[in-house]
């Protein structure tokens, strides 16, 4: 990696803070699901998110990286995200409950992310995870599992 440490620290902090946003989303959308259907709890944030994104695009007017249009499949990320909600709504009500759903989801996410990095899937940069990455993965997943299974009363 040719990036100076300061840049990498910035990416690090940004990714960690992004995870913080996710915990807020879980709180908001989870509260919505407690009153309405799981569909509704996913439909509303997609609706308000579309409006908010349009608003932000109008204000920020970010530059397009390329003039040519990318292939059509790159617009389908939202489908994958929506299917996730439906899958978890099925597993939440099974014997897996919330803890099992989250734990197995983390496993699937990490294994596929490592595989994607090694292969450079979907036109993203290829990179080989180092030993350190696996050590840090072991620590973070161990800590997460403890929090998921023993950290709260649910």
């Amino acid at each position: 990696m040719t990036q100076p440490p300061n840049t990498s620290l910035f990416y690090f902090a940004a990714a960690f803070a992004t995870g913080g946003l996710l915990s807020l989303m879980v709180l908001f959308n989870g509260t919505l699901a407690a009153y309405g259907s799981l569909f509704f709890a996913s439909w509303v944030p997609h609706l308000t998110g579309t409006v908010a994104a349009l608003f932000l695009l109008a204000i920020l007017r970010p530059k397009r990286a390329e003039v040519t249009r990318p292939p059509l499949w790159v617009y389908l990320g939202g489908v994958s995200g929506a299917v996730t909600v439906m899958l978890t709504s099925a597993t939440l009500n099974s014997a897996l409950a919330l803890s099992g759903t989250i734990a197995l989801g983390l496993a699937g996410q990490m294994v596929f992310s490592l595989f994607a990095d090694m292969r450079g899937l979907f036109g993203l940069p290829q990179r080989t995870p180092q030993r350190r990455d696996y050590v840090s993965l072991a620590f973070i997943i161990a800590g997460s599992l403890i929090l998921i299974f023993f950290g709260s009363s649910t």
Partner: protein
Amino acid sequence: MIIFASLAIFAGVLVSLSRQINGRLALSTSAMESSFWNHLVGLVFITVIALIVGGLFAGEPQAAPWWAYLGGIVGVVFIAAGSWLIARIGAARTALLIIAGQMVFGVLLDVALGAPGNLWARVLGVGLILAGMWVAHSGKKTS
């Protein structure tokens, strides 16, 4: 049981898949535009499925507190950030650090909201996560 376990694992795979595809779109356009398409395409998809299955407005959604409706505004920044990060630090690091942040901030939120929980499990869990982040970052400097 094995079917449900497979579904839960597959859901995790889809989280990563979605971030990769959005990251690829951000490479051609911008992180915010990628987030816009993610939400719009997801909205259309969910609407179609909900129309087929029904029950979108079941329950008492109008009784939910107003702040529960703010998830989408946070989500726009969340998807944009993920799309931006994945091309820069890779899918695995992005996923791992987002998980770390979600877990640590989740504990802080629980504490702030007074949710009951085991103190020692929380201390140990957060400690392990912070240790893992330290390992990952101390490696970055030397590479």
